């Protein structure tokens, strides 16, 4: 049996390191020893797959998936759409994309969130979908509000949507956050600033996409997600080790 093509080595120069003192919670939650580098075995190149039996068609519509019949959440109606690609710019089809977010007032529907902005009775704050054969996905939701958090005394998160993506191998697994073009809180956010590379930050900022708006209904933002690419094996050289 031929050995599987590995995923490209993760470029740690554009990824946040574990220890980032500006984001205080990372201090006690960051490993200190070097990670052991591992060539991909079957355990790494494989990963879970999902199908249309796992989710429902309406799961990607946060305007309706928790609202009472005939009602809508409060807030700016938006479409968040884009493609999941790999580093070779190839689409990642049929992969699960899950999102969660605060409501338009910056409040999460979570028993641990005590921010004084109110819960929206018509907004759950989560959605999920599978990319199509072109790696394309879309959600309908409201634009989340900024919210304060305890780090420095006066830190505010920029408006953001949390995004979880699988890909085709477990080593592509990624959780990130989607920010919105023009938000003045982005450059001063300690969580954004854990990312050591300006272009990598830029890549997490969804762009206003006027062409994809639904006139008189919803404004659109484009957010593409890039997962690690995979090598096609040209030469097989037997290496010692794992």
């Amino acid at each position, binding site marked *: 049996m031929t050995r599987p093509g590995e995923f490209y080595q993760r470029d740690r120069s554009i990824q946040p390191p574990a220890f980032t003192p500006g984001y205080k919670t990372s201090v006690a939650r960051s490993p200190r020893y070097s990670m052991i580098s*591992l060539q991909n075995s079957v355990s790494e190149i494989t990963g*879970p797959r999902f199908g249309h039996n796992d989710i429902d068609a309406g799961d990607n519509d946060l305007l309706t998936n928790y609202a009472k019949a005939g009602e809508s959440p409060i807030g700016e109606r938006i479409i968040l759409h884009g493609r999941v690609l790999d580093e070779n710019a190839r689409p990642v089809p049929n992969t699960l994309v899950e999102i969660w977010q605060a409501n338009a007032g910056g409040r999460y529907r979570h028993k641990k969130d005590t921010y004084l902005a109110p819960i929206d009775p018509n907004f759950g704050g989560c959605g999920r979908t599978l990319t199509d054969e072109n790696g394309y996905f879309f959600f309908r939701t409201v634009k989340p509000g900024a919210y304060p958090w305890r780090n420095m005394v006066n830190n505010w998160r920029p408006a953001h949507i949390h995004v979880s993506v699988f890909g085709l191998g477990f080593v592509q697994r990624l959780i990130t956050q989607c920010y919105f073009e023009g938000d003045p809180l982005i450059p001063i956010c300690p969580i954004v600033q854990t990312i050591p590379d300006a272009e990598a930050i830029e890549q997490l900022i969804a762009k206003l996409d006027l062409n994809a708006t639904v006139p008189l209904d919803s404004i659109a933002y484009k957010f593409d997600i890039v997962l690690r690419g995979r090598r096609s094996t040209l030469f097989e050289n037997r290496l010692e080790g794992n």
Partner: protein
Amino acid sequence: MPQELAYLKESASQTAGPYVHIGLAPGAAGFDIYRQELGHDITGPNAKGQRIRVEGRVIDGMGAPIKDVLLEVWQANAEGHYAHPEGGGPVEDGFRGWGRVISDFDTGEWSFETVKPGTTRGRNVGTQAPHLNFWIVARGINIGLNTRMYFGDEDTANKADPVLNLIEWTHRRATLIAKRSEKGGLPTYRFDIQLQGENETVFFDV
């Protein structure tokens, strides 16, 4: 331009934050929204092999259990096949081999039931001992942490495992080996994950 490399860059990771449950386990956040939450059933109804329980905590650098951690498990079935086209062979109908586990908000304890995986082939040499692959996210973790759990009652297989043997500091290999006991009629493996300190768990850059 000659020889332009047109690769894209992987999107940067950001912490899953304290409210990760809303997206990935909404029942735990306190509400019911989806027909079914994903990742509760790792094996499906038809999985063969030894049923087991796995339990543990993720412990921070102050020695405190992390109470808002989320772990994902990825494993082969009892025959050593992953549910994937390149997974080594067929799996039982309904076997996905993937689970999502959250810690208790008060104690930080987590546990799940599954079947014990079989051995799998090594990348270049040998056979990998039975193991579970873990991916760990939480508030304060900027990028998901990858590690593996091996089984304390697989001494021979563990000694031959090409990944364990890659760890130069032999005493650190023990951080990946879960101790077996019996609880409620099931073999139970204890896997406490230490993020820092003398017994810091080995994490992998995969």
